[in-house]
């Protein structure tokens, strides 16, 4: 069923949210954007290795989710996770250092681009196996219900992951057991080179929820306001004990799937169309139009973020690699585990 949509209170020349809220969204989105751009440069210099999937174009999703949650809520997502993690409070310094594979990274150089975790903010990580986090997020939600909290777990995944069997099993159990889980598919149109259209007859992904009578709706993901609104509404439903909710947040990745993907499967026009709706740009325009900040104040934010990201790179560069002996830590909680060492 499509959840009933409230009429948006947004009027053209009147802010629907506080000045602080707009600035917070703007700052977070810009921080993610600049972080990702700088990460790509570092990748080009071979300072970042392996897989690197950036979030450029999708920033409004992370921003709108974070502002709608409360402390205690959890998030788990896939490998395209730098933006989500930064939104959760992973510092750009710890994130950049992780990309560089340094001991000062968010997981001490053990995870790299795909696997950030931050237990203190209930960030349950970036998962590299497509769809694996869907049941995991469902289980995180089960634990919240079990413990009697009113926390929920935002379980994020891509449009490609929506075709994994684990989704259907999870949706069914979450709905049957009324678990406090908010499923969010970030529909950026493609799973690597495969468009959503080529993977199923059901192309409006929110409709998958219908088979489980799960409230489900599509959301404009190029705008933090619409994401925030939808997540707030869903969170209210979930916290009322009514069980899971499913949002299809429609967004777009400007870059290839990963650094090595030239993205020949889509047209320039399509990319340009989305860039026209760029969330960082349109939010900045809105802030200025509504007089929530001056050009000078916006410039200050830009300068501060630029300096922050450069400092993060410097920190990453100057940090040491983890010692090779760290290969043997964190495999078991047992400290004297007898590894085979021959």
């Amino acid at each position, binding site marked *: 069923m499509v959840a009933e949509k409230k009429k948006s209170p947004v009027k053209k020349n009147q802010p629907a949210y506080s000045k602080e809220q707009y600035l917070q969204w703007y700052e977070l989105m810009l921080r993610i954007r600049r972080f990702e751009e700088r990460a790509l440069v570092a990748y080009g210099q071979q300072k970042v290795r*392996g897989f690197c999937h950036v979030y450029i174009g999708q920033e409004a999703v992370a921003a709108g989710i974070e502002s709608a949650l409360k402390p205690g809520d959890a998030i788990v997502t896939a490998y395209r996770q730098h933006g989500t993690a930064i939104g959760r409070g992973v510092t750009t310094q710890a994130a950049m250092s992780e990309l560089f*594979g340094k001991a000062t990274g968010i997981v001490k150089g053990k*995870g790299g681009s*795909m696997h950030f975790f931050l237990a203190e903010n209930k960030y349950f990580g970036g998962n590299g196996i497509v769809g694996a986090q869907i049941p995991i997020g469902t289980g995180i939600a089960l634990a919240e219900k079990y413990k009697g909290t009113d926390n929920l777990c935002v379980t994020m995944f891509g449009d490609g992951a929506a075709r994994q069997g684990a989704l259907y099993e999870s949706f069914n159990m979450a709905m049957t057991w009324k678990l406090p889980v908010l499923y969010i598919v970030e529909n950026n149109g493609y799973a690597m080179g495969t468009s959503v259209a080529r993977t199923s007859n059901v192309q409006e992904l929110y409709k998958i929820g219908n088979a489980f009578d799960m409230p489900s709706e599509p959301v404009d993901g190029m705008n933090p306001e619409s994401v925030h609104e939808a997540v707030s509404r869903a969170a209210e439903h979930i916290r009322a004990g009514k069980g899971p909710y499913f949002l299809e947040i429609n967004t777009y990745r400007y870059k290839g799937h990963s650094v090595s993907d030239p993205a020949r499967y889509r047209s320039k026009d399509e990319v340009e169309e989305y860039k026209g709706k760029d969330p960082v740009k349109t939010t900045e325009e809105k802030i200025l139009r509504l007089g929530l900040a001056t050009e000078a104040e916006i410039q200050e934010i830009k300068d501060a973020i630029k300096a922050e990201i450069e400092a993060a790179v410097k920190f990453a560069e100057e940090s040491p690699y983890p010692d090779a002996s*760290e290969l043997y830590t964190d495999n078991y909680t047992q400290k004297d585990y007898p590894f085979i060492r021959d």
Partner: protein
Amino acid sequence: MARKLSLRDALREAMVEEMRRDETVFLMGEEVAEYDGAYKVSKGMLEEFGPKRVIDTPIAELGFAGIGVGAAMNGLRPIVEFMTWNFAVLAFDQIVNNAAKTLSQSAGQFKCPIVFRGPSGSAGQLAQQHSQMFESWLANVPGLKVISCTDPADAKGLLKSAIRDDDPICVMESELLYGYEDEVPEGEYLVPIGVAAVRRYGDDVTLVSFNKMMLPTLKAAEELAKEGISAEVIDLRTIRPLDIDTIVESVKKTNRLVVIDESWPFAGVSAEIAYRIQKYAFDYLDAPVTRINAADTSLGYAPTFVEEYLPNPEKIIRAVKEVLYVVR
């Protein structure tokens, strides 16, 4: 006549030749058609064979592996590509519980002629979930055959044999070596499953390896030769069935064996070889069978971890000198 071909081109030639020869052979997997394969192994195949025989699947490993099994039971010869074997873990139910058991369960009424293929093993700084070697997992299962070979000529001949074989076969490739080139014969040929290849002859020590660990192994043999140590190098090519005879014959000559295996040590391929050699060549051994494996850990991202984790020529040379009692 031979020409140089990369591993990816050799594998493609095998599939293309078999698909031209046999209408029932088809390829299925993520990104195999329109994207030409995540690692371009199936480049151009959609164009030649069309979408009926080169099929892009959604990301649904358990589902499309099972669809492959059903199609195989019903008269087709599917080649199921996994983008990497790490993702095939989702499909292990179908591989282990169905592909491997169909013949036995049906008392021979149904066979399952299917090839599951894709890259196995580490491929640089890809971290824990994307760096695993699955040869020993799969070779543990009766009913499956397991090929793991990166020499382009042999990989081509083995994949052709696998496609023609009536049993389910797992073909383990290497992401890092898809671009690796070597001589490949022109024309039609097959390489038999279950037969190892001696890549280098020697008298002092036998080195056994497979897949991309053949490269540091051969490099070590070269370095050892400079020091006057003559190593015989065996490329297993097939893990199950294991060609133990070739290893036994070699050990009878050299009296020493070092196994170089990217699998984890516990119950890995090297453990199986060490068992069989102590059983069948006990009297010929002048030193304990020694092995160089990946570290007994998950593989983290940092370059220091990758370096520590993998076998390399230095580690192999050291092990050889140990079994020769040159160093302790």
